[in-house]
């Protein structure tokens, strides 16, 4: 870990609204926290639950999903599809012991550069307060326990859930 911990947030932005909004924020020289790492997708509908789990598994402290406002999806309803998965995922994450605040879905239109700024700053603030998630660290511990205590035991469900094909 770096000397003094700051959260790392993976952001999945849809190409048409939120990514463009982030560009706008840049063109408008708005200043926001440098903790997000943006990954561009064509539509929030493309966000596969596995992407999110993978992000957490690889050490993200939070995941932000940005899509078009309801009715504004470039592809009609991709954002709704995401919304549905999101609801399920929230529940699942709770069971995995990952606080709901760590996964956030926001509708941000191409015009809302200001919102990109405020959402990111707000999320960084909240997650800083929550502290690190550090799943990789936990995995390591669990692995150790497993190997030390019960070599026979199956791998922890969490791990199986986050390892992808």
């Amino acid at each position, binding site marked *: 870990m770096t000397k003094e911990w700051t959260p790392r947030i993976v952001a999945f932005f849809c190409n048409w609204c939120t990514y463009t909004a982030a560009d706008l924020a840049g063109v408008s020289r708005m200043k926001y926290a*440098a903790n997000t790492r943006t990954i561009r997708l064509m539509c929030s509908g493309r966000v596969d639950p596995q992407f999110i789990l993978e992000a957490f598994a690889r050490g993200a402290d939070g995941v932000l999903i940005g899509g078009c406002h309801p009715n504004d999806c470039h592809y009609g309803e991709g954002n709704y599809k995401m919304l549905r998965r999101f609801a399920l995922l929230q529940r699942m994450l709770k069971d995995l012991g990952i606080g709901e605040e760590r996964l956030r879905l926001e509708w941000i239109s191409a015009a809302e550069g200001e919102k990109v*700024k405020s959402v990111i*700053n*707000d999320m960084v*603030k909240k997650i800083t307060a929550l502290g690190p998630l550090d799943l990789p660290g936990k995995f390591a511990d669990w692995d150790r326990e497993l190997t030390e205590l019960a070599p026979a035991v199956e791998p922890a469900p969490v791990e199986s859930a986050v390892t992808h094909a």
Partner: protein
Amino acid sequence: MELRRTIKYESDRVKGFGREVMRVPGCEQLEHCIQCGTCSGLCPLSIFMDHTPRQVMELTRSDFKNEVLQSTTIWLCASCYACTVECPKQIRITDIMYELKQRAIHEGFYPKRFPIPVLAQEFYKMSHKRGRVTENFLATVMFLKTNIPAALGMWRLGLNLLIRGRFPLKLEGIKRKDELVRMMAVVDKLSIDALNNDHQNGGHGGRHNGAH
């Protein structure tokens, strides 16, 4: 006729004064003033002011502290909020006037015997001492302190009020004065400005969620 130089030199500015005022909660919007004059246009008292409210805004923003705090404008503001609700840039002019009044009083920036600040302070004292204010006493004190002839001129008003039972002869007050004293003591201890500054410099004060 007697001539006066009206030019302003940079040395006349008290640099940072404007910023200071704009940092006070409620006064931030002053930055956005476009000098449209809506405030003066609406102000029922602007017709008596040496500087119109608009000018006070500009003088404040550009650090002409002395001009601002010496102007009659801040004292003429009767806080009817007409300017505040109409300002196209949502500047809370009335609140800024309060801020300026406070500074003028703290720094003794007003003519001797000028009734308004005297009233304000007497009001302050009385409400502190007694927890409540009895207007007629307040007025009397003010007149005695500022303009005795006027006080005399007021006797008829006083009498009329007396006849109509609107001139209480005893001072109002609260029971738990000590409580109030303790509360005020707290405020005196904490320097609100200090808090403000800390608050400004990224202290999580809420309204500012700038990047850190």
